[in-house]
């Protein structure tokens, strides 16, 4: 696509019923709406749903919806396989045997909700509502709904995406940039403009800096990776920082295959080049930043030659890439999960944020926009916090020492603190877990054996999910069947545009997340749940909330569903504010209306007051992974491969989609990438199942993909695998431990400020699987875990790290 208008002219808009939200096409009713999940992801693409007789038959992308312009992933194209899947949960279930016996009894919704409500009320009375923990999955239909539910129904401050420590998913980049810029940055791929790539004031990025993610597969955080593929076709150059060779690395001017977990070293060296060679934007630095001199001093000795042996990228490449960033018309930084799945999370975030700032790539066309959630409807957490008793709130589970918690910039509870509370019974005994759309055992938890053992102590657990997952099977006392997206009325305001979702089918007794929290809310705390149904609830979120005078959004949920928005189709509405550039110079960012950024100094803080208040180094720094060639040289001798995890693919979203025939046709097994020379060296072959094992003896198995996508000495494995086709009963739990990379990750090892976890930078050895090998689930069933630990404590070091902070 070189020309967006040409694309729009290449089909007949009437054939796609422009302006209509629902019509008849032959035997099918067609509905124009948007989709996130389940199943899917958290993107929100425009879809045309073909339904007949209360059943979804086909999904097409909607070419008139400018979010994805008719393009769809295989996951959405195969949506009927998910919605009509025979294994879906049809009715509420109550456990009939012991946990893990796979014995269930169908119950009515009334019985399920009454049982839960009764239990909740008695826990609140006998133990206090903080003894209820509410867990939700990644930000989708539970993004605003579940935190509100935690406050306004459960009245507990303990709500979290439980399982991964160090808030190692997006939050570190959000709080890091909030501290330094006063807002968050998102790559400007024209997505705030209704007429997208044809928008007059948008420019194609001069260079796209892909750092620590593969956006076309992950579509992370409300950003559709393929938008950038359009930008490349329109002329953007590419720099790719990734240990893996990806689509981006092949098409880049510079591929920088950084040693996993040392991105901050590389970033400091880039900053050094840009400062030393005076390539920064002097005017921008003078007018809009604070602390340039101290930052410059910090990086003065961080030359590319200094960095080369540490991060394993050549000095020439570092220099070349830094110059390209600084001299391009704009640089759009598409940063990813690797930023916080390392122990230097806040260090690399601030360093790369500094690079974007001093090259004036903030809120510029084709650079990095300062986005807020559409119409400022963003109170996903904290929305109902006033409904929680102050004393109860004070018992929120947070890390013992953390300025970040004290500053209250993070409103969720701390996963490690929850795990410690479960393991030690201090400061209180948790009585109930409510787990909604989270498959903690197969996906989020590090490590799953510990999580399993800890959760087995919880007297009452409810899991709400569309399928019986390992988590539900192993732990739940009651399982609630969750509806898929075409079976729900909902809305979202994550960035822009506003998007609505409308219900067109039913599936047995599966209900939407909204319906479930509303019904339970009405039973437990009716005064905070005045809405008749999910439509009213969505309407309240969009237009009313708790703000006096309502939100900035003028349309109702129903109007948004049924009528086209301004310059856009039905089901969406853009927000001008996000589409405006240079907001800092226009007085748009600060509550006092003054020009400048929304920080204490009104400037971008290269020396960060926020960081300093949190007890985090306010200038660029690196922390070496707790096990690495540098920090544990002895361990490295026996475990000579650097292991990264969390690789995404087109077919799956985290632990979803493993039961869909087409996804398994395209991607049958979990894959570990091994360089051909390492295959040779370690005696493993392409297509062979191998173990990866770490220094504490934890291991999992995946199938070898022999490929130059990884360099010698490094391997890369996938996450989220379980096998719905296998036995669900204990101890196998659908094979959830067998290929689970999280057997090897660990809780309680976080970076400065309690942020970040070294998930993508571990050490391992590899060897072929033999028939006689004892399987992980048997080890866990017998010994509890691969290694021993003290309750609430990290695993003891096998070798004390000799290198830690480098600044």
């Amino acid at each position, binding site marked *: 696509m070189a020309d967006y208008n040409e694309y729009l002219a*290449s089909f007949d808009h009437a054939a796609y019923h422009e302006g209509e939200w629902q019509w008849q096409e032959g035997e099918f009713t067609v509905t124009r709406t948007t989709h996130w999940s389940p199943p899917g992801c958290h993107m929100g693409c425009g879809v045309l749903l073909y339904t007949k007789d209360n059943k979804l038959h086909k999904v*097409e992308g909607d070419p008139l919806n400018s979010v994805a312009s008719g393009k769809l992933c295989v996951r959405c194209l195969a949506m009927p396989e998910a919605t009509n899947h025979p294994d879906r949960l049809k009715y509420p279930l109550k456990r009939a045997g012991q946990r893990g016996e796979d014995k269930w009894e169908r119950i009515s919704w009334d019985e399920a909700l009454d049982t839960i409500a009764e239990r909740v009320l008695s826990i609140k009375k006998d133990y206090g509502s903080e003894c209820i923990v509410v867990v939700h999955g990644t930000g989708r239909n539970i993004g605003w709904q579940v935190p509100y539910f935690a406050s306004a129904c459960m009245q507990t401050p303990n709500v979290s995406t439980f399982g991964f420590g160090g808030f190692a998913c997006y939050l570190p980049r959000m709080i890091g940039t909030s501290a330094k810029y006063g807002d968050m940055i998102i790559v400007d791929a024209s997505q705030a403009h209704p007429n997208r790539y044809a928008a007059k004031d948008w420019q194609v990025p001069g260079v796209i800096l892909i750092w620590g993610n593969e956006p*076309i597969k992950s579509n992370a955080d409300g950003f559709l990776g393929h938008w950038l593929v359009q930008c490349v076709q329109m002329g953007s150059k590419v720099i790719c920082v990734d240990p893996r060779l990806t689509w981006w690395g*092949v098409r880049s001017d510079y591929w920088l295959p950084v040693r996993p977990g040392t991105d901050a070293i590389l970033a400091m060296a880039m900053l050094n080049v840009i400062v030393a060679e005076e390539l920064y934007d002097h005017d921008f630095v003078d007018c809009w930043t604070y602390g340039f001199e101290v930052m410059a001093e910090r990086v003065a000795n961080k030359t590319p030659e200094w960095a080369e042996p540490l991060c394993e990228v050549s000095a020439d490449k570092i220099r070349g890439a830094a110059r390209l960033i600084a001299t391009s018309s704009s640089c759009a930084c598409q940063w990813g999960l690797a930023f916080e799945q390392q122990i230097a999370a806040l260090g690399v975030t601030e360093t790369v944020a500094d690079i974007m700032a001093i090259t004036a790539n903030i809120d510029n066309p084709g650079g990095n926009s300062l986005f807020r959630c559409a119409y400022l409807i963003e109170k996903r957490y904290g929305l109902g916090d006033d409904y929680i008793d102050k004393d109860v709130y004070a018992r929120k589970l947070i890390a013992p020492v953390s300025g970040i918690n004290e500053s209250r910039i993070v409103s969720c509870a701390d996963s490690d603190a929850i795990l410690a509370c479960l393991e030690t019974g201090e400061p209180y005994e948790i009585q109930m877990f409510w787990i909604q759309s989270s498959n903690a055992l197969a996906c989020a938890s590090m490590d799953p054996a510990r999580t399993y053992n800890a959760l087995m102590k919880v007297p009452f657990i409810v899991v709400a999910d569309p399928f019986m997952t390992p988590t539900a099977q192993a732990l739940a006392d009651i399982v609630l069947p969750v509806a898929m997206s075409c079976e729900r009325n909902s809305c979202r305001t994550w960035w822009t545009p506003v998007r609505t979702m409308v219900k067109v089918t039913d599936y047995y007794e599966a209900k939407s997340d909204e319906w479930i929290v509303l019904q339970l809310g009405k039973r437990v705390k009716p005064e905070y749940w005045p809405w008749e149904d999910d439509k009213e609830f969505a309407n309240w979120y969009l237009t009313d909330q708790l703000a006096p005078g309502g939100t900035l959004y003028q349309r109702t949920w129903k109007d948004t569903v049924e009528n086209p928005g301004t310059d856009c189709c039905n089901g969406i509405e853009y927000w001008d504010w996000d589409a405006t550039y240079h907001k800092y110079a226009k007085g748009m960012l600060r509550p006092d209306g003054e020009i400048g950024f929304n920080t204490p100094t009104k400037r971008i803080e290269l020396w960060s007051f926020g960081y300093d208040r949190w007890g985090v180094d306010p200038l660029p720094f690196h922390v070496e992974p707790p096990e690495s060639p540098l920090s544990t040289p002895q361990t490295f001798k026996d475990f000579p491969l650097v292991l990264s995890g969390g690789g995404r693919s087109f077919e799956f979203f985290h632990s979803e989609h493993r039961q869909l025939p087409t996804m398994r*046709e395209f991607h049958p097994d979990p894959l570990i990438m091994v360089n051909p020379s390492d295959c040779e060296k370690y005696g493993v072959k392409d297509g062979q199942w191998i173990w990866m094992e770490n220094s504490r003896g934890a291991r999992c198995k995946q199938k070898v993909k022999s490929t130059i996508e990884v360099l010698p000495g490094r391997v890369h494995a996938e996450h989220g695998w379980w096998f719905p086709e296998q036995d669900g009963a204990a101890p196998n739990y659908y094979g959830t431990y067998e290929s689970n990379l999280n057997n090897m990750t660990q809780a309680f090892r976080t970076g400065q400020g309690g942020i970040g976890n070294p998930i993508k930078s571990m050490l391992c050895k590899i060897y072929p699987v033999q028939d006689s090998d004892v399987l992980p689930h048997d080890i866990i069933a017998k010994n509890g875990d691969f290694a021993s630990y003290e309750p609430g404590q990290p695993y003891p070091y096998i070798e004390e790290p000799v290198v830690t902070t480098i600044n």
Partner: protein
Amino acid sequence: MNSILVNYEYCTGCRSCELACRNELGLTAGQSGIVITEVGPIEFNADIGLAGEPYDWVYMPVLTRACNLCETRSQQGKLPSCVQSCQAWCMYFGEPQKLVTKIDGKTRWALLGK
């Protein structure tokens, strides 16, 4: 008679076209009117005159005999399913004589038709 032009330099191998076509033609597992092939990744160790990194890794969709160029859809004014769903936005549909004028002498293209 219309054709499909592919600027396969940018194909990401997402396989959306395969599945969209399978849906369109009502085909089952292992079958589609269009199938993605993969070339690479290759590392060149001789100088092949590239400005950037010395690698190649491309995908190319191939039409199978099942493809009918979405005759019915195109009569209705719709895009072929594969072209509509193409996430990389690297497929174009139309008269071959017009399509080939897009070929730019820089990136790689292929005209698919019958």
